[in-house]
């Protein structure tokens, strides 16, 4: 360990000490405490997912085994995948590490939207519990259709129990949580960086998280749409994925993998970021090829949207589509290779310190590279066709997800635990854990390559003897149990070290980034004074006082000279942190009840809805600066832009993909309609009138904004009421149109046209309805004199949403109504 730097001992309590009590944790909006909540929850689910994995291996240990049976085996592999992805890897990377580290890395006191951060957590908990409702056996067991939930296995006809309902609704809830986190972190990184921290001075973990949040914002909407269709099929008897109705289950695969492949990088990129941070202090060198590392992240993210088809080679997309997806998939190997070579070059020639964190980092590089190489192999369609659904695929994705992501996560634990808890994790136990993990991981998953080549398919609960699979399955299972033991060591280490471990200084690793400049654990407000960043590796430069070429701190070995961060204790008195709030928890509870109501008792939906509404209004009005222009915050922001406005634009960007998925479905199903009602039923004169009404409402909205901006509250309120009124006229027209269609016999279940039309136009209508409610709140508040020039931002943000609803309608009116006669859309 490096010579310990002189650290500043703050006179204030750290974030764990003050405030105390369970209530303070239930109402916390401190990003560090929320990170702890995420971490504890995810570690709990890691145990659950790990036990599921070991039960799977126990079942496969010997041929013709009936230890748990086929039905429970299906539930186990479904929930193992779902749990590990949505309840372990993502919450640990995003909820735990990113939540804790983003503000510390960029020199901020919290995330952009602290209440939203807490809300994301409680919604996550609601979704996680919901996914496990099937543990109550009377509710028909756990989901059992795979983490990918392929249609039409998930249709009510083939999965009549409510176990798939819990999966659909659970994932929808978790999607909300992830989207909100993504939006929050995106705005935080873009607009809350400390002065001087340009994009090219950000720690690489911040680059990774920035790109990850973009992936989240633009990938999850496709999954949401796919799940909404599945929900409709199961609850409303529609046929989005039913071949007999003219539809195709291939649509699910497209929507799922448009989300699913970026999802792989949503899990991979944070791990890339973590090891990029860990590798530098333990190599005593700056990160090699920083700019290319950053650009590679961006390129990986961009390409990840164009590779979803490689999961679908076996569906028969045709040679052009197969070739396109094969090429884009192989192209991804280039930026990924740049990263791998950069990590190796960082280590090369360095003065290495083989701490546990470094060992896991090196383990990551080796194992992830192995997984990546087999990935390139799958990118070739003819090869993939031989490997699809065999154990070689299971080997591949475990090398990526465990050998890559989990190793990265473990490296992060050993690296940042001292900062998070103020205690060092035990290095001896850690090194034992690493070597056992390395052995057992390869022992468990490497032979799966052989089993795949020998023809063993995935997802079979047992197999006949003498297929040539017996030995390797036995070998894998033994190693899986050893792997479980390695994780037992990890949990013991976490608990023991947190209670009895060596106290950590502020900078135990001689770190390079800003989090090491503040005490371990940090105070609630993180930084006494917002740091001024003058170079990449900001803390290193402050410690050693020089900036090398291109702003990179030179590699200097030896101990730190001094930790320079300091300020008079009385400064603390002037730092105002947002107050805690119980409403995020109430929101999560409401969402849980509303989802439960869909399955067992419909009145719960109303109760849940009321709780959600109450919590939203509570959060809006408890916030003292609601919509208020804050020149100080604006001056502090990196881009000189308001976080709330940035957040709204990021949200609208996400909505683009949501509506694109809905519109695509309408258009691809337009010609697959099996007869009966079609687009010719659409009432053009009525809709033309509605279109004029909606466009006019947008005019009234900007007039309202102009009035409020000149502090004319009377006309501001009048125009806002007018906008809401025109919105209601539009909704009335839509209600008339829908009623007329239903009376003519066109229901949502009638045919493909009915279901795609009602879903698309209905979702737009829901957006209009939300907009009208929002406008009425704004109008009444303005009429009461609460919104004037100083709070015009509230009207501007509401207006952005309203205009977006308007431009979506511009597209719908053209593509759905005016092009109703166009075939082969």
């Amino acid at each position: 360990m490096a010579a310990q730097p002189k650290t500043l001992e703050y006179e204030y309590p750290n974030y764990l000490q003050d405030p105390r009590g369970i209530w303070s944790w239930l109402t916390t909006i401190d990003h560090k405490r929320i990170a702890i909540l995420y971490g504890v929850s995810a570690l709990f689910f890691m145990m659950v997912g790990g036990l599921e994995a070991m039960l799977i291996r126990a079942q496969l240990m010997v041929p013709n085994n009936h230890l748990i049976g086929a039905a429970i085996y299906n539930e186990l592999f479904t929930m193992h995948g779902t749990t590990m992805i949505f309840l372990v890897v993502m919450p640990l990377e995003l909820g735990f590490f990113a939540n804790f580290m983003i503000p510390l890395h960029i020199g901020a006191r919290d995330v952009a939207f602290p209440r939203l951060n807490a809300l994301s957590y409680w919604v996550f908990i609601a979704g996680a519990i919901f996914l496990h409702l099937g543990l109550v056996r009377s509710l028909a067991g756990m989901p059992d259709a795979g983490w990918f939930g392929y249609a039409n296995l998930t249709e009510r006809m083939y999965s009549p129990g409510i176990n798939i309902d819990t999966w659909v609704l659970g994932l929808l809830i978790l999607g909300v949580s992830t989207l909100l986190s993504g939006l929050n972190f995106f705005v935080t990184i873009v607009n809350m960086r400390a002065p001087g921290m340009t994009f090219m001075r950000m720690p690489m973990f911040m680059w990774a998280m920035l790109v990850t949040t973009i992936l989240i914002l633009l990938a999850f909407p496709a999954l949401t749409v796919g799940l909404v269709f599945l929900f409709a099929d199961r609850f409303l008897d529609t046929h989005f994925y039913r071949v007999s109705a003219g539809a195709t289950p291939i649509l699910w695969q497209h929507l799922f993998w448009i989300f699913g492949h970026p999802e792989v990088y949503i899990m991979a990129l944070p791990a890339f970021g973590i090891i990029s941070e860990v590798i530098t202090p333990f190599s005593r060198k700056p990160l090699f090829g920083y700019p290319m590392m950053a650009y590679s992240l961006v390129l990986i993210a961009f390409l990840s949207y164009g590779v979803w088809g490689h999961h679908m080679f076996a569906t028969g997309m045709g040679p052009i589509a197969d070739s396109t997806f094969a090429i884009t998939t192989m192209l991804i190997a280039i930026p990924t290779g740049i990263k791998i070579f950069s990590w190796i070059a960082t280590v090369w020639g360095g003065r290495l310190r083989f701490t546990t964190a470094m060992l896991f980092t090196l383990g990551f590089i080796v194992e992830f590279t192995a997984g990546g190489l087999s990935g390139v192999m799958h990118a070739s369609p003819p090869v993939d066709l031989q490997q699809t659904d065999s154990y070689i695929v299971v080997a591949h994705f475990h090398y990526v997800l465990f050998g890559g992501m989990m190793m990265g996560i473990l490296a992060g634990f050993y690296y940042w635990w001292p900062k998070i808890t103020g205690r060092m994790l035990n290095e001896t136990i850690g090194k034992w854990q690493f070597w056992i993990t390395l052995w057992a991981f390869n022992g468990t998953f490497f032979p799966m390559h052989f089993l795949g080549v020998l023809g063993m398919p995935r997802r079979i609960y047992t197999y006949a003897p003498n297929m040539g699979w017996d030995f390797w399955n036995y070998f894998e299972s033994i190693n899986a149990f050893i792997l479980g033991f390695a994780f037992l060591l990890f949990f013991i280490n976490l608990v023991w070290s947190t209670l009895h471990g060596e106290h950590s200084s502020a900078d135990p690793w001689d770190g390079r980034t800003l989090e090491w400049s503040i005490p371990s654990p940090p105070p609630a407000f993180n930084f006494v004074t917002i740091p001024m960043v003058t170079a990449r590796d900001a803390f290193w430069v402050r410690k050693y006082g020089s900036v090398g070429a291109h702003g990179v701190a030179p590699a200097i070995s030896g101990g730190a000279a001094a930790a320079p961060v300091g300020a008079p204790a009385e400064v603390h008195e002037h730092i105002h942190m947002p107050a805690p709030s119980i409403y995020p928890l109430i929101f999560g509870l409401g969402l849980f009840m509303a989802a439960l109501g869909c399955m067992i008792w419909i009145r719960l939906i109303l109760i849940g809805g009321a709780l959600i509404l109450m919590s939203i209004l509570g959060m809006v009005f408890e916030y003292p600066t609601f919509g208020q222009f804050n020149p100080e915050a604006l001056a502090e922001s990196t881009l000189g832009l308001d976080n709330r406005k940035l957040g709204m634009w990021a949200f609208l960007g996400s909505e683009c993909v949501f509506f694109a998925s809905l519109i695509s479905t309408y258009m691809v199903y337009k010609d697959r309609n099996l007869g009966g009602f079609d687009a010719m039923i659409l009432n053009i004169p009525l809709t033309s009138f509605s279109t004029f009404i909606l466009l006019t409402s947008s005019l009234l909205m900007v007039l309202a904004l102009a009035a409020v901006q000149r502090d004319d509250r009377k006309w501001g309120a009048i125009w806002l009421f007018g906008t809401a009124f025109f919105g209601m006229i539009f909704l009335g027209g839509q209600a008339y149109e829908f009623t007329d269609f239903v009376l003519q016999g066109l229901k949502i279940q009638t045919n493909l046209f009915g279901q795609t039309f009602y879903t698309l136009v209905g979702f737009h209508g829901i957006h209009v309805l939300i907009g009208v409610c929002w406008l009425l709140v704004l109008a009444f508040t303005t009429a009461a004199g609460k919104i004037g020039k100083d709070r015009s931002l509230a009207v501007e943000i509401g207006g952005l949403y309203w205009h977006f609803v308007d431009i979506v309608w511009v597209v719908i009116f053209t593509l759905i109504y005016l092009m109703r006669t166009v075939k082969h859309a």
Partner: protein
Amino acid sequence: MSDHAIKNPHIEAHAVAHEEHPGPGVYLLVAAILTVLTAAEITVFYVPGLQPVLVPILLVLAAVKFAFVAGFYMHLYYDSKVFTIFFGFPLLLALLIVLGLLLLFAHLQGVLSFTIP
């Protein structure tokens, strides 16, 4: 959040500049243009002679309307270009997703056939 803001005069001036939105006159002019464009769309729909070019005309008109609302009512034309990037990239991605799915399904249905020479 903090009482120790590090003031950046450049940023403050920058931020104030973004508050300069157009007045009601511009909004009314845009509304008039949107009305005319919508009327043109409906007209094109009802004129039999324009049916062969219905799709391109409607797509262009819709794109222009979209641009006017986004540019003037949502102030992208006046505000920071950051917002345009935030909205433009997802919009491009959304268009590519629509296009990609249309092509893939067109091939699936045999409407569009690809052959490798």
